[in-house]
């Protein structure tokens, strides 16, 4: 990692909950620039919620969460933290790309329009220029031929690749992936993972919530295991996966790996 550069994410004792249910119980987590961090954990462990806190889609209710040098949701002024206006949230999110489990492509727009949408409507890029750039981004994820198709005419894997291109079109400093392959048919997972690997190789700072253990091992610089709203264990992926220290990590890994690399995969 580039030593000396300020960390992209510093989470200190981050707490969050809704409706009387505590979802995050004090998350401590740091991401350096250029790193690929993978987050694994059982469902309900708060890993997606934490990811959504990073770009302000969910509110942080306790502790401190600094992303790209800013305290998410508040600005310090005259000795007080003032809550952000919707405009400030919007300005902050421009620098953070997000890819969703269910793609969330804009259903009324073509693939090209989806990718050009952010630059045109948020950055104010002239439409012609935005379309040219969008075409380049689509080409990069291998979908230049499908530029004029609507989302419902694309496969899940293609939709997710368009979603990645849409996020990249904003030139983000940080990319968040919320279980990007969980909603895909098994044979479509790899095409999305390939795009993500390419992105990692180019030095993009990425935080990936995933169940793809092989991807975490191969591409991740760091791996964090979430359970009950805290980071139970973290470290280099190979080390955590080979020799988990905590009983909960071991139990989770054996159940996940049993499903992914056990006999059922060979049938």
């Amino acid at each position: 990692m580039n030593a000396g550069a300020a960390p992209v994410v510093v989470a200190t004792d981050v707490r969050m909950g809704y409706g009387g249910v505590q979802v995050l119980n004090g998350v401590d987590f740091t991401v350096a620039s250029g790193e690929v961090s993978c987050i694994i954990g059982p469902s309900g462990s708060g890993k997606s919620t934490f990811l959504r806190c990073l770009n302000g889609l969910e509110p942080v209710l306790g502790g401190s969460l600094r992303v790209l040098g800013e305290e998410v949701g508040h600005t310090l002024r005259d000795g007080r933290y003032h809550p952000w206006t919707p405009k400030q949230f919007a300005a902050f999110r421009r620098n953070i790309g997000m890819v969703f489990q269910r793609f969330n492509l804009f259903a009324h727009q073509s693939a090209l329009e989806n990718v050009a949408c952010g630059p045109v409507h948020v950055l104010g890029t002239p439409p012609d220029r935005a379309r040219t750039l969008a075409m380049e981004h689509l080409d990069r994820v291998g979908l230049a031929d499908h530029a004029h198709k609507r989302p419902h005419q694309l496969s899940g894997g293609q939709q997710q690749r368009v979603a990645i291109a849409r996020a990249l079109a904003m030139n983000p400093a940080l990319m968040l992936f919320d279980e990007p392959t969980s909603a895909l048919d098994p044979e479509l997972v790899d095409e999305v993972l390939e795009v993500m690997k390419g992105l990692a190789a180019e030095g993009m700072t990425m935080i990936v919530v995933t169940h793809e253990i092989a991807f975490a091992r191969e591409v991740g610089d760091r791996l964090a295991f979430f359970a009950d709203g805290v980071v139970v264990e973290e470290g280099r992926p190979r080390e955590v996966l080979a020799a988990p220290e905590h009983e909960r990590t071991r139990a989770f890994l054996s159940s996940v790996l049993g499903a992914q690399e056990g006999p059922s995969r060979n049938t």
Partner: protein
Amino acid sequence: MRTEPIADGSGTPVPVARTWHWGRWLAAAVALVVAGWLAYLVVVNPRLDWGKVAEYLFNERILSGVWVTIEISVLATALGLVLGVLVAVMRLAHNPVLSGLATFYIWFFRGTPVLVQLIFWYNLAFLFPELVLKIPFTMIGLKWDTNQVMTGFTSAMLGLGLNLAAYFAETVRAGIQAVDRGQTEAAYALGMTPAKRMRVIVLPQALRIIIPPTGNEFISMLKTTSLVYVVAGHDLMTNASQIYKANNRIMELLIVASVWYMVMTAVATFLQGRLERRFGSDAVRLVRGGGVAARVLPKVAA
């Protein structure tokens, strides 16, 4: 139904018998007798002068009434749609004052009969003899005589439009809420403000969802305009009633008016069908699933 003969055990083709739908024949017979009898009673009624019906069907005042009815329907529907979208967006705003105002508007205009509203607007001059639009604390501004502004036509358009807006706002709200929540999240994640998200992402999808029901609103509006005759809006019903008040041929002119209303409805229904074919599949796809969709899209689902 199969018509090709079926080979029996020895390979000889045996024809297939026809099914007799006794229920259908019975229902058809009953309907024919009842409807025929009623039609006969009306058609041969000596007090009904069919010659007058034919005479007035293309009467100049009737035709101009038809035209005014179409004008009022189109303008009032347009006003109702635009205002309805605005009220729906306000209703869903996080600002409690805006959403409160929208709720009040919907409650007020749905809570009073449209007939009362029409008469109210027509008689606005009783409350405000002059309409004044000016910059406060100056003499600069414009002034109109209320009775000249609030003609039968404008009060009809205003009354029907404001009333439709209240109903249509609820349709739009359902349409907006039917748009997948993920679309909003993706828009926010790209750095859009709530207003931009609504304008660029949510409304274009919500409008595709609610286009088919707007056809319904228009068809209903064509006939609601007949209420306008209480404020003498010179629509089809006003003119028909003025003619029958003069010549006492009430039934004949009601038939004339009905024929024209049915023709207009038939044309509007045809256009609505085309709208649905154009946007219906979009709408179904955008909504995905039942719930709200079932209420917004009663026609498309069929």
